């Protein structure tokens, strides 16, 4: 078990929390390569090998994995909803369109409930936020080791597949919302916004510094709480997945591949291909059951058999824990996406209201 080895455990966690970074290494940085230490003559844009180099890059770096997954998921969102928009008719809607309309109806009613100004942008903004964040959070439900391990076999060293566990991503969105808040505050209230910052809560000129301080803190707290709430929740969820995966070096179900690759990672001598084959077989059995080819009882038996071959009863425990946490996490994922959306709407609504 990997848990018996503290060094590899720490390594495993750290590896999981390291983004794939592309950035600028400053001149004079001592780079550890296979051929020993190499001192960089000038600033170099390169992929970071390890946390030290990533840290040395400082601000001038970009998390390639976070950006790629975030943009990819955003494109999936756009493609899905655009397809629905193209197909949208006034006639009887089909299944997929029904689903999209369900989401849109839900967002529309939420916006109508909490946003009282007139702005054509708020509803689409809320839709984008909700679906996009939901999709980003959903990546959390993929087995923690699956994609990183596959990509590692393909030669990519680090991979964090849940963009919302990256504070850059969540704060980026929160700052976007903050910019909109400031814009509409100034646009709608004009001088009233300055008055709001200086004359509340104590309406007297002598209190202006205190008012300004309090209001500014309140204003700045909004984007920070917005971004960090999402980040914190997703980060903690991801950590628990990692910890469960680590506790059970082998797994079943969701944890099957997780645990299998885990075992591979820490040299338990299990072949990753073997685990993948078992995973595919289990998926096949489940699929056959869904298609009605084999009975549920037989499916359970076959799955259990495959899992027993695959990871043993202990592994099954790990898989069950992953399953349990994943099911609970579905709630967290949806809730966090929803909270981010609702708070955005509320903040923008406050920016539109003349009277405090």
């Amino acid at each position: 078990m990997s848990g018996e080895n503290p060094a590899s455990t720490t390594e495993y966690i750290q590896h999981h929390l390291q983004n794939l970074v592309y950035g600028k290494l400053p001149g004079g940085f001592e780079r550890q390569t296979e051929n020993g230490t190499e001192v960089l003559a000038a600033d170099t844009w390169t992929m970071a090998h390890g946390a030290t180099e990533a840290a040395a890059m400082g601000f001038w770096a970009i998390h390639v994995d976070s950006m790629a997954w975030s943009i990819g998921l955003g494109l999936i969102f756009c493609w899905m909803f655009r397809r629905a928009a193209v197909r949208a008719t006034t006639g009887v809607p089909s299944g997929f369109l029904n689903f999209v309309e369900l989401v849109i109806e839900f967002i529309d009613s939420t916006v109508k409930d909490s946003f009282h100004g007139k702005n054509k942008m708020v509803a689409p903004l809320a839709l984008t936020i909700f679906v996009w964040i939901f999709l980003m959070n959903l990546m959390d439900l993929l087995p923690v080791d699956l994609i990183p391990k596959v990509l590692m076999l393909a030669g990519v060293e680090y991979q964090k597949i849940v963009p919302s566990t990256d504070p850059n991503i969540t704060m980026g969105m929160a700052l976007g919302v903050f910019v909109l808040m400031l814009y509409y505050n100034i646009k709608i209230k004009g001088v009233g916004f300055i008055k709001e910052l200086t004359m509340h809560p104590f309406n007297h000129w002598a209190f202006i510094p205190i008012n300004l301080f309090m209001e500014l803190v309140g204003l700045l707290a909004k984007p920070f709480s917005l971004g960090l709430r999402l980040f914190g929740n997703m980060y903690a969820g991801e950590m628990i997945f990692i910890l469960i995966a680590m506790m059970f070096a082998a797994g079943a179900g969701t944890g099957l591949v997780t645990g299998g690759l885990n075992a591979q990672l820490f040299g338990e001598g299990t072949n990753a291909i073997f685990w993948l084959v078992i995973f595919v077989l289990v998926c096949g059995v489940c699929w056959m059951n869904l298609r009605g080819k084999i009975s549920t009882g037989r499916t359970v038996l076959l799955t259990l058999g495959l899992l027993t071959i695959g990871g043993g009863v202990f592994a099954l425990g790990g898989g069950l824990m992953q399953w349990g946490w994943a099911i609970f996490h579905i709630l967290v994922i949806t809730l966090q996406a929803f909270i981010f959306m609702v708070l955005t709407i509320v903040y923008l609504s406050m920016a539109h209201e003349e009277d405090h």
Partner: protein
Amino acid sequence: MNINLTLFGQMVTFAIFVWFCMKFVWPVIITAMEERQQKIADGLDAADRAMRDLEAAQDKATDQMKEAKQEAAGIVDQANKRANQIVEEAKQQAITEGDRLKVAAEAEIEQEINRAKEELRASVAGLALAGAEKVLEASIDDKANRALVDNLASQL
């Protein structure tokens, strides 16, 4: 967990996706949905209206039926009355005609009787004369006289 360029990358991406959604997704779907809502509302309205129309038509039809029935009953009544009247009139006429005929017949009979009487009177005088002649001729044969008178009387 360091903040870096990704922050701004995400901000730009965010802006682009929101813009896309605002331009090409939201208005299209929401318009279609609202139009469909309107269509459904119109359809339901039309159905309601049709129901009301149907009810009104049914009411009207029932009224008309009732009216027609009443009218028909009136006509039948009138016809019956008229028929009775005609029968009554005919009866009356028949009776009058009968009476008239009877009176005429009686008058005729009276006339006939009178004429017969006249004739009889005329013949009686002759017969009496003839009888007297006979009596005088046969003298007095009581038996023969009686027989003659009887004969005479039977000729009356």
